């Protein structure tokens, strides 16, 4: 019985160690990078507690002390990822002070939605937009029927539009109550994967740069250089932009990944999730994929 338990312990320990250590490597391959996606909040907590429980078991088994130490280290590494995205960590982008909070002309509200191209519940998004009344709406995975539906209902409320319908799940639509200028639709890295760069004029007259991106997802059998390059390219552009920058959309990445940390170093932009908690956007698995798909959203010179 004890021998059986030891083998189970070795197997679980190996899985925990591999899935903790491999995403730290620089290997840009979906099977490796994708492991980061499994680190969503609850799964991380489960990992943490599983490691703690296994550590306790290991200490009771003959020669289990080493396994216990390894598992304890894994738990600490997992905790290290978690804690940055909780309220126990110092916020990276700060809340607005009273004067800034009162100055509504300096505010901007944005709604970002990945509609999932095959989803045809146009009315759900239209109703949500009408309830929330954001200044800017960004929808990704939109094809022509999606844009037609949004435009037929919301054109009167949103005067400025950037429409990039695509049948390959990489379509983008931006609609805004605030004036948009310098709008560009580019395919900067991979043909067929567009992104949007524009300027938004706030009520105060000040402008902010808005990047809307939806790079390729990490998949098991493919490298992630396309996605990583797209995200990095936007980061480098934002770093050299004279305007304060907002990067949003669906980055097909998670807040704690190596790619996102590199993006932040390249851009100098701030992550509002740090010190505030997770915001998981992905609900369930699709086509065998599973995990959280989060929107990275960062700005300089901003209050929150």
């Amino acid at each position, binding site marked *: 019985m004890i021998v059986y338990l030891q083998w189970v312990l070795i197997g679980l320990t190996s899985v925990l160690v591999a899935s903790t250590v491999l995403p730290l490597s620089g290997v840009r391959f979906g099977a490796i990078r994708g492991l980061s996606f499994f680190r969503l909040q609850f799964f991380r907590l489960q990992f943490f507690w599983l490691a703690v429980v296994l550590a306790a078991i290991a200490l009771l088994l003959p020669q289990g002390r080493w396994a216990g130490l390894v598992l304890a280290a894994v738990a600490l590494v997992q905790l290290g990822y978690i804690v940055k995205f909780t309220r126990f960590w*110092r*916020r*990276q982008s700060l809340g607005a002070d009273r004067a800034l*909070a009162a100055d509504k002309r300096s*505010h*901007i*509200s*944005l*709604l*970002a939605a*990945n*509609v*999932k191209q*095959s*989803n*045809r*519940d146009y009315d*759900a*998004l239209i109703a949500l937009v009408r309830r929330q009344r*954001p200044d800017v709406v960004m929808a990704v*995975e939109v094809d022509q029927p999606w844009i037609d539906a949004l435009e037929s209902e919301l054109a009167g409320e949103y005067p400025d539009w950037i429409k990039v319908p695509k049948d*390959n799940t990489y379509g983008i639509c931006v609609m805004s109550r605030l004036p948009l200028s310098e709008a560009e639709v580019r395919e900067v*890295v*991979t*043909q*067929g*994967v567009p992104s949007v760069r524009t300027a938004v004029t*706030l009520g105060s007259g*000040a402008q*902010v740069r808005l990047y809307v991106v939806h790079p390729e997802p990490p998949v098991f059998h493919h490298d992630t*250089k*396309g996605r990583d*390059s797209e995200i*990095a390219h936007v980061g480098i552009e934002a770093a050299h932009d004279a305007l*304060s920058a*907002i990067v*949003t959309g669906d980055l097909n990445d998670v807040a704690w990944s190596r790619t996102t940390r590199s993006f*932040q*170093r*390249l*851009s*100098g*932009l*701030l992550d509002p*999730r740090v010190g*505030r908690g997770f*915001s*998981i*956007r*992905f*609900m*369930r698995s*699709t086509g065998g994929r599973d995990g959280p798909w989060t*929107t990275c959203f*960062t*700005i300089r*010179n*901003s*209050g*929150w």
Partner: protein
Amino acid sequence: MARLEKIGSDHFPMMFRLALADRPMESIDAGSADPAEQAHIERMIWEEKKRERTPIGSDWED
């Protein structure tokens, strides 16, 4: 920052409200890339731009 209700997609929509300050606010530095990282990234982007391929996942909706 708030997660909104589902709209029939496999993603939750997100809402963000920001205020633009007229000066950089005190905040934690996100760090900066060293020259080696910058060069590595720029090389990766350059190589990736040269590749000719179909975007990943284009067939998922079929």
